[in-house]
Structures are given as structure tokens and as C-alpha cells.
């Protein structure tokens, strides 16, 4: 996978979310991602950035345009925080499981909306979640 364009956005307050979503939107428009795929990506991003704000208070997101071939271009978002980490990742990936007050659809829902979903978490150290959505996939 080759990275074409890279940017880091800090997430500290709830208002940063709107700015962040707009940036992701611009990236998606840049590679001419279809409307449905773009909406799926933005929704997944919205879920993950909320999780970050709730559980880790702050963090950052790396936005990249990635490509694996002339035919497959996409956007990769990497959410990095230094929060408490996820205690039971298997449980966290099941529908309806939550340690907070949400519906428990955040992680499993976001996974269903994107093409590649990758979580690395260390208890007490933080969580890194990387999602990739292909332009036409």
C-alpha cells in the first residue's frame, strides 16, 4: 500500500469533530469516492472519534489517501489515543456490548462500514484503530 497524501488532525474537543469530518469529506471528494461509500466512511469515522473523546478524552487522527494499484484507491484513517485501552477487545467487537451508556454499535458497526479494520490496544497505554475504505468497494 502506498500513501499519497497525509495529514494529522488533533482531536481535543467535541467541536474538533466537525472540522475533522469536513476534512475527511474533502479527502473523499478528492479521490471521487461514491456517495454511499463516503457516507459509510464518515459515519465510521464519527463513531470512532466519539469513542476516542469519551474514553480517552483526546487523541489524534492520521488521514491518508492510500493506493494498492491503479484501480484501487482509498482513504485510511488511523485513530491514536493514550487512553485506558480496551479491556476485552472480543467483547467490544460484539453488537450491543458497551461499558458506557451507548448502544454498543460503535466498534462493530464501524467495522461493518469499512473494508479494513484493525485494532491494537494496550491496557492502560492506549488504543490505535486503523480503518480503510476503498473508493469503490
Amino acid at each position, binding site marked *: 500500500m502506498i500513501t499519497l497524501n497525509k495529514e494529522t488532525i488533533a482531536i481535543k474537543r*467535541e*467541536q474538533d*469533530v*466537525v472540522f475533522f*469530518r*469536513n476534512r475527511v469529506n474533502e479527502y473523499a471528494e478528492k479521490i471521487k469516492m461514491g*456517495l*454511499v461509500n*463516503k*457516507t*459509510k466512511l*464518515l*459515519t465510521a469515522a*464519527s*463513531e470512532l472519534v*466519539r469513542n476516542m473523546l469519551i474514553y480517552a478524552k483526546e487523541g489524534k487522527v492520521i488521514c491518508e489517501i492510500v493506493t494498492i494499484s491503479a484501480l484501487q484507491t482509498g482513504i485510511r484513517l488511523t485513530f491514536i489515543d493514550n487512553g485506558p485501552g480496551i479491556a476485552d477487545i472480543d467483547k467490544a467487537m460484539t*453488537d450491543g456490548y458497551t461499558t458506557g451508556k*451507548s*448502544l454498543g*454499535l*460503535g466498534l*462493530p*458497526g464501524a467495522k*461493518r*462500514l469499512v473494508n479494513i479494520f484493525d485494532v491494537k490496544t494496550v491496557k492502560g497505554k492506549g488504543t490505535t484503530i486503523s480503518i480503510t475504505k476503498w473508493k469503490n468497494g
Partner: protein
Amino acid sequence: MDKIPILKMGDYLLVTIQVDLYDRLALNLESDLVNMINKHSSKGVLIDISAVNIVDSFMGRILGNIAQMSKILDAHTVVVGMQPAVAITLIELGLPLSGVHTALNVEKGMTLLQEKLFLDSTVIADDTDDNT
């Protein structure tokens, strides 16, 4: 503080969401709407989301909450104008918003509300018939 305007039209309340929602704004809308329903004893709430590009699980929950809360206060909620991409995403997310009435546009939503209200009134009328 940002607020989403709520319009009162007779027995109904009309909300048109024209901005990108963030969590606090959505929470404010929830409490404002519930207060307005109570204040005007409204019979129906119409929420137009045709300009909303993203509905994630949090917004979906707020919409569901509003529907449930207004039901308790004896008002029907209809969400109208959802964009196709948003609908597909919500289904994939696992959030079919069961319990929320939907309609294609404001006009059809109004008709739906009137039908519901008519049904309510006939049920009440039937009840009184039985009592007499």
C-alpha cells in the same frame, strides 16, 4: 450556544435540521423538543433530516429517544427525507430505527401524522361509544 429552531404549526412541531449535527447539538434538540411538546401539548413532531449527511449510532439513538419520549407525552414522531446513502449506512451499522415513523418528504409526513391523529381520535370516540 447553538440551537436548532423548532417551529410550531398548530398541533404539530416542525424541526428542519440544516447543519451538521454534533453530539451536544443533538442532545439540546432532544430536551428542547420534549419541553416544547409539553408546553404546547403538541400531537405530532416532524423532523426533516433531508439536509443531514451523516447519522451515526449516537444521532440514531437521539432520534429513537425523541420518538419514545414524545410517545409517552402522547405525540407521534415522523422522521422525513432521509437520504438514500444515510439509510443504507444506518442499516449496515445495525440501526434500523424501529419504532420511528418515517416518510419520504414533509408533505407525506404531514399526511401520515394526520392519519395517526385521526386514528387516535376514532379510537377515543369508539371508547366513549362503549361507555354510553
